[in-house]
Structure formats: structure tokens, C-alpha cells
């Protein structure tokens, strides 16, 4: 029986790994919110990936494998604590749609189109780390719930609940920016 391939050899591994660099760097930038730390995090990720190259299985998702290495390094090295210890309390439900319908006659798409890209990035950056990483994986990088769950090391249901809470918080921030920018008027009401 033929032995299952374990790792790409030499140049093949390097070429595939480097093809994910921009994606990893963008993810690192969102996780760390700092360009210098993002560079360090990505470099450390590749050092570790190279060290454990033999554990990568050919034909599996290298981007997910690299992201898993990177997010674990992020929590170990940059946060100095376990992700599971971080509280997600304090994020009450908030629906941009309901708020807009209560307080402004403008269609929500018009409000969203009025927001600049850097305001959206700022809203993502204001999310808690646990919320931010799931938004990066699912919304930015297009990971499936299963792949995101594998990267983070949690059940799929946890990914779904974090994503829902993250989107609620995101809507809250985007609404605040829209109000500060004069796109909508009125005070936000807590549900």
C-alpha cells in the first residue's frame, strides 16, 4: 500500500507557503492592529511552519494550517494569556436594521455606502480579539465554519455564536460612525 504523502518537499512547500503571505499579513494586521507586530507575528509563523513542515499533510488546507499557527502564536506571545480566559461579556444585542428603522428614514444600504473603508476597518479593530479573529477568518478570508473552528480549536457552535456577537458589535460601531459622520441622526437606543 502506498504511503500517504506527509509534506511538500523543499521548493513546493516554500512556494505554497509564500503564496499565502499577503493573506496572513492582513490577518496579522487585524489581530495585532500594529504593523511592526504584524510583521513579527508573520515571520514567527513562518519560522514555526518551517520547523514543523513535516506535520503538514499534502492536499490539506495550508492557509488554514498557517492561520492556526499564527493565531496560537498571537495568543501565546502577544497576549500572554489563553484565549479561553478572555471574557466576551458586555456585548449586548444590537440590530443596525432595527435602529435605522426606528431613527432614520434613510435606507440602510445608503447608510453603509456612506461609510469609508477606514471606518469599517476601525470598527473591526475595535472588536474584542476573540470576535476579531472569527470575523477575519469567516468574513474576510472566507473560511467555512468548520475550517474556522479547526483553526481556533473550538466547536462550530462557538464560531457561530462569536460571529453573531461580533456582527452585533460591528453594527453598533458602524452606526456610531454613521452618526458621527452625519449620515444618520439621533441617539442609539439600547434594546
Amino acid at each position, binding site marked *: 500500500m502506498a504511503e500517504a504523502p506527509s509534506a511538500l518537499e523543499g521548493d513546493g512547500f516554500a512556494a505554497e507557503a509564500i503564496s499565502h503571505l499577503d493573506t496572513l499579513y492582513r490577518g496579522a494586521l487585524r489581530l495585532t492592529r500594529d504593523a511592526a507586530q504584524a510583521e513579527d507575528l*508573520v515571520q514567527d509563523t513562518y519560522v514555526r511552519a518551517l520547523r514543523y513542515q513535516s506535520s503538514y499533510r499534502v492536499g490539506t488546507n495550508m492557509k488554514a494550517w498557517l492561520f492556526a499557527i499564527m493565531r496560537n502564536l498571537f495568543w501565546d506571545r502577544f497576549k500572554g494569556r489563553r484565549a479561553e480566559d478572555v471574557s466576551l461579556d458586555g456585548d449586548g444585542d444590537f440590530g443596525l436594521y432595527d435602529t435605522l428603522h426606528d431613527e432614520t428614514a434613510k435606507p440602510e444600504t445608503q447608510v453603509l455606502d456612506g461609510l469609508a*473603508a477606514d471606518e469599517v476597518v476601525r470598527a473591526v479593530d475595535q472588536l474584542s480579539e476573540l470576535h476579531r479573529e472569527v470575523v477575519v477568518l469567516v468574513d474576510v478570508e472566507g473560511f467555512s465554519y468548520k475550517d474556522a473552528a479547526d483553526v481556533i480549536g473550538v466547536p462550530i457552535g462557538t464560531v457561530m455564536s462569536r460571529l453573531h456577537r461580533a456582527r452585533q458589535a460591528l453594527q453598533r460601531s458602524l452606526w456610531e460612525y454613521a452618526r458621527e459622520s452625519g449620515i444618520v441622526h439621533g441617539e442609539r437606543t439600547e434594546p
Partner: protein
Amino acid sequence: MNCPDCRERIDRFVDRELSEDDLRSLEHHLSACPDCDDEYRLQSNVKRLVRVACGEGEAPAQLRERLRQLLS
């Protein structure tokens, strides 16, 4: 499908994670419920905005070069 059931599934619909049966039921509900359809379109637009805003940009050239040397 009623509105609460629909709202509970909109995240998965936006993320293309619904089963075929749920997908058909939800689309049927959205076609007849303007409020839920608006909520779906809002969620979808927020996801698109985040993907576009955070999905651009390249790694610095010096980092790329360092990694090329590391991997060579």
C-alpha cells in the same frame, strides 16, 4: 418558517452554511417578508464591506524578502 426562525438562520444564510432544506425554506420566507429580506441584505452588505475593507493590502516587500530567504 416564521420571522424568528428566519432571523436565527440569517448568519448561516449569509455565510452559505445552511442545509438545502433550510435554504429553500428561508428563501421562501424572504420572498414574502420585506423586513426579514431587508435584514438579510443588511447583513450581507456589512459582510461585503468588511471583506472589501479588510481584504486589501500587501505584505511589506522587506518581509517578503526575509521570508523568501528563510524558506529557501
